[in-house]
């Protein structure tokens, strides 16, 4: 009898067996139809060093001022899932990106003198029962030396489940981007691509982008 069956058959180790089941869930071959994990990439140097007062999911309007930020308005949504395709509820999705002038919400950013004060630069959303998240932001633009991208982190409590970046499908700068090229597997690179399409019925030329994030979960200790 193999180790798996031996351990699960022992009544006294049922709890351990459940934990083992959780561990074996990540063993390739044992469970088919696993979704590929969204690959991690570097956090980069510009995670906000001072979080804004306004940390909601609308990056366009800062503290109720009515002047919107400069850029192509985009509704970015998706789901956070585990590899079995199950939604992760109550996890926090954070995004941050440079504004339309190429400045981040960070004291060390380039283009600091041109920072768009009506762009929040950072947003946060807690997923609902279906694992879904939603942000209103701008389509990312190039930052010196980088192709357009949006940084994201998914956290469960204090634990980071993934840190990565999403990119604009087909952008000409992608081929030269060092971070993206550092993702060696072309399938992994594909998993970081996001389409920015015109939002149906929008009279304002807004865009819609859908990006599902698949995370691997380490097992709970018994």
């Amino acid at each position, binding site marked *: 009898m193999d*180790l798996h069956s031996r*351990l699960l058959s022992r009544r006294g180790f049922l709890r*351990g067996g459940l934990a*083992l089941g959780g*561990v*074996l869930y*990540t*063993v*390739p071959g044992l469970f*088919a*139809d*696993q*979704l*590929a*994990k969204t*690959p991690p990439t*570097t956090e*980069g*140097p*510009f995670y906000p060093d001072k979080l804004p007062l306004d940390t909601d999911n609308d990056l366009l309007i800062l503290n109720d001022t009515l002047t919107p930020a400069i*850029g192509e308005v985009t509704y970015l949504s998706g789901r956070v899932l585990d*590899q079995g395709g199950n939604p992760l509820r109550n996890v926090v999705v954070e995004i941050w990106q440079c504004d*339309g*002038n*190429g400045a981040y919400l960070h004291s*060390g950013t*380039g283009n600091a*003198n*041109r920072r768009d004060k009506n762009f929040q630069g950072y947003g946060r959303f807690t997923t609902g029962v279906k694992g879904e998240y939603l942000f209103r932001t701008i389509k990312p*633009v*190039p*930052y*010196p*030396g*980088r192709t357009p991208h949006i940084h994201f982190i998914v956290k469960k409590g204090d634990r980071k489940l993934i840190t990565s970046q999403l990119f604009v*499908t087909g*952008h*000409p*700068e992608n*081929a*030269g*981007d*060092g*971070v993206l*090229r*550092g*993702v*060696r*597997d*072309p*399938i992994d*690179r*594909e*998993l970081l*691509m996001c*389409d920015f399409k015109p939002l149906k019925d929008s009279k304002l030329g807004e865009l819609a982008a859908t990006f*599902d994030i698949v995370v691997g979960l*380490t*097992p709970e200790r*018994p």
Partner: protein
Amino acid sequence: MQRFPRFLVLAVGLGLIALASLGLAQPGQPKGGTANVDAFVARLMAFDKNADGKLAKDEVTDERLLRLFERADANKDNTVTKEELVALATQEVALGGQPGGGQPGQKDGGGKGGFQKDGFGKDGGKGGFQKDGFGKDAFGKDGFGKDKGGFGKDGFGGFGRPQVGVLVPTFLQDRLKMTDGQKKELEALQKEIDGKLEKLLTEEQRKQLKEMKEGAGGPPRP
């Protein structure tokens, strides 16, 4: 001899399995994410549920990979054969991990294209980014490198594709704290160079340059 406690044996066993599972990559992905054509093909052919040696569109249950499927489907018959996968893989695998074609700042070849594991370059001295993203001197130890004009292989300190035709971009002028006098002289120099460059290039080349410039961080479109 004392009987070795069973729970201890199993705890060690569980621990070992937990460790082993951490070391295992997701299904079909070779350890370390090494990109090669075989691995790419194998990873996608894992979706071939009916094992007929090709992929039908509805077999690709991970929606995020449908774009890749469409790229692979060269003859647009909604089926992807192994040959079509190999052809796509050969193209796409080649894009990963190599120094970007448009990355200056590589005085001695650079090799890693100015971007190391963390995406931002361990060795700022070669003109890449420093480990923390920008380091003290965003342009590496030797500033602009040999060519202070900003052109040339190492003129941009690893900032990715050079903004062709621009002597000193505005964000750099600010960083360098150029005086008004300097800026005026630079402007005159820029005009002179623009004129000469325009005479030098053909219509087609000028068009290409314009497209590159817009992709490399021009002002956002309204």
